[in-house]
């Protein structure tokens, strides 16, 4: 079972904005170097508990934080 997922962003300032939005919503997240298998535009990605996928998506959409893609972490 997948324990974590990562949100990828175009740039780090969007990643930092997402981190604040999700922390404010009491979701546990952590900025990590973007896993190499996903590559990315941006050097950092936001790791979250996969069970929080829906609230993570919703909160970011509500706050209009532009994201690149969301991946499950194997």
């Amino acid at each position: 079972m997948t324990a974590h997922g990562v949100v990828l962003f175009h740039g780090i300032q969007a990643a930092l904005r997402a981190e604040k939005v999700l922390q404010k919503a009491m979701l546990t997240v952590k900025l990590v170097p973007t896993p190499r298998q996903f590559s990315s535009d941006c050097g950092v990605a936001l790791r979250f508990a996969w069970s929080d996928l829906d609230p993570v998506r919703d909160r970011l959409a509500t706050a209009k934080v532009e994201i690149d893609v969301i991946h499950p972490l194997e």
Partner: protein
Amino acid sequence: MIYLDNAATSWPKPAVVAQAIGQFLETSAANPGRSGHRLSLAAARVVYNLREALAEFFGLEDPLRLVFTSGVTESVNLALRGLLRPGDHVVTSPIEHNAVMRPLRALEREGVRLTIVPGTANGCLRLGDLELSLRPETRLVVLNHASNVSGTILPVAEVGAITRRQGKLLLVDAAQTAGVLPIDMKAMNVDLLAFSGHKGLLGPTGTGGLAIGERVDVRDMAPLKRGGTGSRSEFEEQPDFLPDKYEAGTPNSVGLAGLAASLDFLRQRGTEALRRHEMTLTGQLLEGLRAISGVRVFGPCDPARQVAVVSFTLTGRHVSDIALQLDEEHGVLCRPGLHCAPAAHRTLGSFPEGTVRFSPGAFTTAKEVEAALAAVARLARAPT
């Protein structure tokens, strides 16, 4: 020493600015947004948190649309160079600083058409004149929020209502007003706000930014510079998302750490209280100067209609001599001349001689203003 040159840069800075800069240098001054390690992230968070705080301060919804620059000059150049193309028409006020006039004159040589709205004697403009100057091909109106020569406050919200209604963009040069007068981009219909960090916001030099409202299509606004952003490193084209599109190169994170501290200080002290303080000092200056025989004061001469900038001349004296004597004999520091704003001096009737400018600030006291006035009175009495 009495420092009355806050319109050039505010001084002293709140003590927390130097502390924050020192602490940032010692604890977290890695390159923000480049490497992803904890120090890099700490630095990037300082930059992001300030971005968010300033966006809120200026009424801008999306903090990523606030980009940092070296100051108003770069911000204005970015907006003008980025948006205007040959054949476009641009309208500006009669009291602009050279930060606006020089890029506009250069663009004019490249085929951009420029209209300068006529001014009134105290440095203001008539809304009807501005509205009449708009054409179908007008892309942008550029407005100085307040003159750095006479302090005259221009009616930004009223102009914003016009530009909004007519479908034009409004760029505001807030060099003299950011941190001093309330600015709500949304309520005032300001599309682009160029601000400085080192004047009314009380931060260090080398800081500032451009806040870009939702009505500006950034696909149509070219960057001024291109280079590394820490993002999209596999591509050799500049990224098209914000803020990276306009923030090539390592940012002045040390300066921004200082600006974050001064913004906190400002919000704690309350910008309204500071504005009242500056209005009181401006009133004291205006009254004192006008009581001195031979002094001519320029501008609205009304603290409610100007920022804390007062320009004057003394009959029979060169402004440079007055400033030198004030400095050497009385320890009063001010700025004489044309203040990088020949257009404003022409409007006010003080070109080419210029004026002596007194600009008190957040830390100026009534006693200091009194001493400066006494010094001018002594100069006025001395034989020429």
